[in-house]
């Protein structure tokens, strides 16, 4: 069914600004005409977008789909629904499922499943090591031939630097991106929150910032030695940012990501042992948060990636020390960033589009979305003057666990066009 979106402001990627106009999408989902004051053709539904913004679909390169294995937390279908609901029109699935995706066959099964249930592209990643155990290399060639976009043990750091080195050298032959989560197990241990004032007051074992920082420094060195492309997941401290900046300055092909929660919250936001604030890496200090925002703006941090890690409310209802790490992110990222950073003027939509749509697509080898004639219509309609109350029934994810639960944020996603 063809549609005419009237009088909205949309992102013009050539002129790099918001432009007011009409967009006619034909019944094959292609943008046929872009103009001002377009006449309404027959049999075309009109949508009045006055006051609204039309933003190219977002791309989230760190999503835990949970299927196969943990379908009670999320399925690919509910994951897709959640993504679309949050303005995300493409994503990369992490391979930490049960079984973990560490061979070409498993990639194929997953891709078949995706094509059955998901209206949006879900790209696959494969494990670095067999079974994510950190002991031997996984089957890179099989996975590469099936088109995985990156290799990662996601959530587990490869403990042995020598093995990580071999992974990177071997991955280079397939021109595959190596992605690592950044954590030193021996320093993290049973930690539940950032180590410091809050861990003392709450009486919880702490995760020192250096656990991530040491891992990042180590991984960068290995990448520099091997010349492999490295992507660092979930950067969370000021020192980590400094290391990345240093490496980039030296010309190392390293990229990194940050979650929306680390851009908006700190350890001080954890009150009453609310496990909706328990995530990995943990929320850090205000100084870290400020450094992350600055790095996002200056490009040291390349992308925003939500680390959408659903766990059921029941699982999260344990004591803080025992509860699993992770919160949902697909439906809250755009809203939270708008409410907490765009609306107050810290940065603009152009940066969000760059960091949460164009650049992540570029890193995994996709071209960016454009709202121009001849392109596929893939955007969401955003009402900056609207409001969204993130109650449980708002969410499409099976696991509505988020620090923003029951909060009302400025802005509303009216619909996502795919």
């Amino acid at each position, binding site marked *: 069914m063809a549609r005419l979106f009237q009088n909205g402001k949309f992102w013009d990627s050539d002129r790099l600004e918001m432009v007011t106009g009409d967009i006619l999408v034909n019944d094959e989902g292609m943008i046929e005409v872009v103009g001002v004051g377009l006449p309404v053709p027959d049999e075309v539904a009109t949508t009045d977008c006055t006051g609204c913004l039309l933003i190219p679909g977002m791309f989230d390169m760190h999503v835990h789909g949970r299927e196969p294995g943990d379908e009670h937390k999320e399925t690919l279908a509910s994951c897709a629904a959640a993504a679309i609901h949050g303005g995300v029109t493409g994503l990369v699935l992490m391979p930490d499922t049960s079984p973990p995706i560490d061979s070409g066959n498993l990639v194929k099964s997953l891709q078949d499943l995706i094509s059955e249930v998901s209206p949006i592209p879900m790209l696959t990643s494969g494990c670095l090591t067999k079974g994510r155990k950190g002991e031997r290399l996984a089957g890179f060639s099989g996975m590469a031939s099936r088109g995985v976009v990156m290799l990662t043990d996601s959530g587990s750091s490869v403990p042995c630097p020598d093995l990580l080195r071999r992974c990177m050298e071997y991955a280079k032959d397939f021109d595959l991106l190596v992605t690592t989560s950044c954590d030193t197990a021996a320093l993290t241990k049973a930690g539940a929150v950032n180590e*410091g004032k809050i861990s003392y*007051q*709450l*009486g*919880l074992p702490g995760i020192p910032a250096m656990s991530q920082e040491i891992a990042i420094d180590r991984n960068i060195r290995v990448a520099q030695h091997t010349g492999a492309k490295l992507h660092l997941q979930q950067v969370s401290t000021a020192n980590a940012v400094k290391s990345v900046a240093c490496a980039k300055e030296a010309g190392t092909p390293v990229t990194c990501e940050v979650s929306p929660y680390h851009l908006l919250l700190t350890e001080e936001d954890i009150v009453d*042992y609310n496990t909706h604030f328990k995530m990995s890496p943990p929320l850090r200090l205000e100084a870290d948060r400020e450094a992350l925002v600055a790095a996002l703006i200056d490009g040291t941090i390349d992308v925003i990636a939500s680390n959408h890690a659903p766990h059921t409310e029941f699982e999260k*209802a344990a*004591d803080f020390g025992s509860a699993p790490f992770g919160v949902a992110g697909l439906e809250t990222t755009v809203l939270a960033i708008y409410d907490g950073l765009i609306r107050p003027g810290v940065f603009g939509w152009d940066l969000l589009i760059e960091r949460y749509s164009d650049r992540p697509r570029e890193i995994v080898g996709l071209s960016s979305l454009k709202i121009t004639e001849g392109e596929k219509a893939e955007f969401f309609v955003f009402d900056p003057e609207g409001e969204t109350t993130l109650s449980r029934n708002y969410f499409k994810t099976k696991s509505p666990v988020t620090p923003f639960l029951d909060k009302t944020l400025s802005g509303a996603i009216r619909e996502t066009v795919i």
Partner: protein
Amino acid sequence: MSELKPRKDLLDIESLSLDEIEYVLENAVPFKQLFQRSVKKVPTLRGKTVLNLFYEPSTRTSSSFEVAANRMSADVTNFTISASSVVKGESLLDTIETLQAMRSDYIVIRHQAAGVPGIVAKHTRASVLNAGDGYHAHPTQALLDAMTFREVYPDFQGRKVVIVGDVLHSRVARSTSTLFHKLGIEVGVLGPGSLIPEGRHEFMQRFASWDEVFDWKPDAVYLLRVQMERQEGQFFPSVAEYHKMYGMHSTRVQRMRELGCYLMHPGPVNRGVEITDEAMGYEKSLISTQVENGIAVRMAVLHWLKPETQLD
């Protein structure tokens, strides 16, 4: 006097106002006096149920709460749940439902995970008393420590206490230091660098040695229990070394004596680790007074808290 509002639960010291603290500490005194009578009971909580839910084994604290509840004429039931028979998470919510169904008026809960008493308190109408949760808090211990200190020092404001030992893993250190600070008592700490956390409250000034401690002229030294099993080899090399550097033994007892400094310990003591047999006999030891006051304070807390179980 009527700025005080009734409260359902006692979960930590941080949430208590100075008025509430004074109220409990003052009321504990008449309760303590009851111990001199032949009939040590009062009928105040007759017909009320107190559930002692202990997820960690403890003789001292659980029996203290049991005695306190008995002396209030309440009906007491004890549950000790060992960690191995508890499936985490699942069990907590199920246990809470069971507790609700039992319609207990008071639940005393001790758990190895921080934050659990707070979760239970949110989901039950009973008054929840935190008898110790992980490293987080032990509010009744802090109250009895304050009561004991104020008995020997009615002019407690501005006086000084040093806490010695494993502050990192100690809920007693956290609660007692916070309460003493609220009351205007200065708090210092002494212990191995691996057990004195950087994230501690700023008011807890760190001393490098016993000499520095005694130069500061503390009014009381508060020894913490050292968990040998966990800490030896990981946080300090050996028990012998800990004892040599931080233990309360003869020369230090002598300096205490010269200063007229009191000795405190939450119990149970590890003889030969943080304290010697000789030091246990120190004439200014308040350790047994702490135990006695513990019962009085717990009775005062049971008297003070107001469960919502009568709202049907």
